[in-house]
């Protein structure tokens, strides 16, 4: 059942306020790292790593790292519940399936010989 309205207090929520306070510094640090990574991405884009594919991979690695930080720290995924992890795992599988199987279809056309 729901907590009756009288339970809410203007005091910090007992369980998490303390942890939240410690995390504030972490959020600022991650923000700084993300900013630096952005500049890194731009800088690296002007370096030639050989092939166009290599350039793309480098950029995507940095982008994935940034996205990982946002997801893990800002979106609290690092300490989320298994229900949420399950949703995201299923989604990831299907997103990869959509892309990979379509890529397979495009790269495997029928041959006349």
């Amino acid at each position, binding site marked *: *059942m*729901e*907590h009756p*309205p009288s339970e*809410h*207090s*203007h*005091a*910090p*929520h007992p369980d*998490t*306020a303390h942890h*939240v*306070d410690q*995390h*504030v510094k972490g*959020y*600022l640090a*991650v*923000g700084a790292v*993300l*900013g630096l990574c*952005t*500049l890194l*991405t*731009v800088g690296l*884009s*002007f370096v*030639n790593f050989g092939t*166009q594919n290599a*350039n*793309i991979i480098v*950029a*995507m690695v*940095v*982008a994935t790292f*940034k*996205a990982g930080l*946002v*997801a893990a720290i*800002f*979106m609290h995924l690092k300490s989320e*519940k298994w*229900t*949420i992890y399950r*949703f*995201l795992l*299923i*989604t*990831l599988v*299907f*997103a990869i399936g*959509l*892309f990979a199987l*379509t*890529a397979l279809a*495009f790269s495997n056309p029928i041959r006349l010989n």
Partner: protein
Amino acid sequence: MEIPYTVSARPDTGLYNAKVGIWLFLASEVMLFGGLFSAYVFLRVGALPGYWPHGFLNVPVGTFNTLILIGSSVTVVLAWAALKMRQFMRYKFYMAITILCGILFLTIKLTYEWPAKFHHFGAFIKKDSLAKYEPYLGNNYLAAKGLTQRVEITGDLENEDALKDDSITEYDIRMDAVNADPTNPESDRPTFWQRPVSDKVAKVDKADVEYASMFYPRHSAFFSTYFLITGLHGLHVLGGIIVFTYFWLPVGANLYKKNPEHLANRIEVVGLFWHFVDLVWIFVFPLFYLL
């Protein structure tokens, strides 16, 4: 009976309802942008040589916008943290910055980036006519260097009437630096700062043109994809701004007085949406602006 677990967590899942709901919604958004990014990949990989451009988008502006969005992600999580610690004025401060960052992002996009595109022109040259415009395309030089051919002449269209009037038989294009000086090694790759439009004007016969237009979505697969993805992303930014503003107004204060944890949860949930929007941009920026 009231609906349980709107604020407090259900014991076995450890989650309150809105958190389950928003993550499910974000899962569907992953599939939505996943579908769009898949389209991007297949259209780009399937593009004929020279038809997928580079260097048309403004990198410094894009970088700035990326930093703005990242900053707003930081401020929104600080706003949520302030609510958890019951520091209401701090919440209002950080939320205001978040909203302003979002507005700034959209303003830059809608008043500068997109209009700049709409005023730029490009003409795709027919395959058989490429040799004729070699002075503006430099394909011999590119072939010798093993680089992809150029098939387009871009710049400012001097005679805009040519777009509507069929009796005008040529486009007068004040060319971009890359077409004005195609064999200069500086033109081989995009540069960080956009090079200004040159003084040289090319007269391009309409008969030699496969397709020409301003840089509208219809101009090419690249611009179609660019405008669709950044447009849809922009709509999501707008949605986030609207909801944040709603909670910044006295509605938020009233909810805070009744049940501060409820407001904290709502901000957390919208914040998750906002982070996702930031996440999408983290991929959009390199894929369109840099690569």
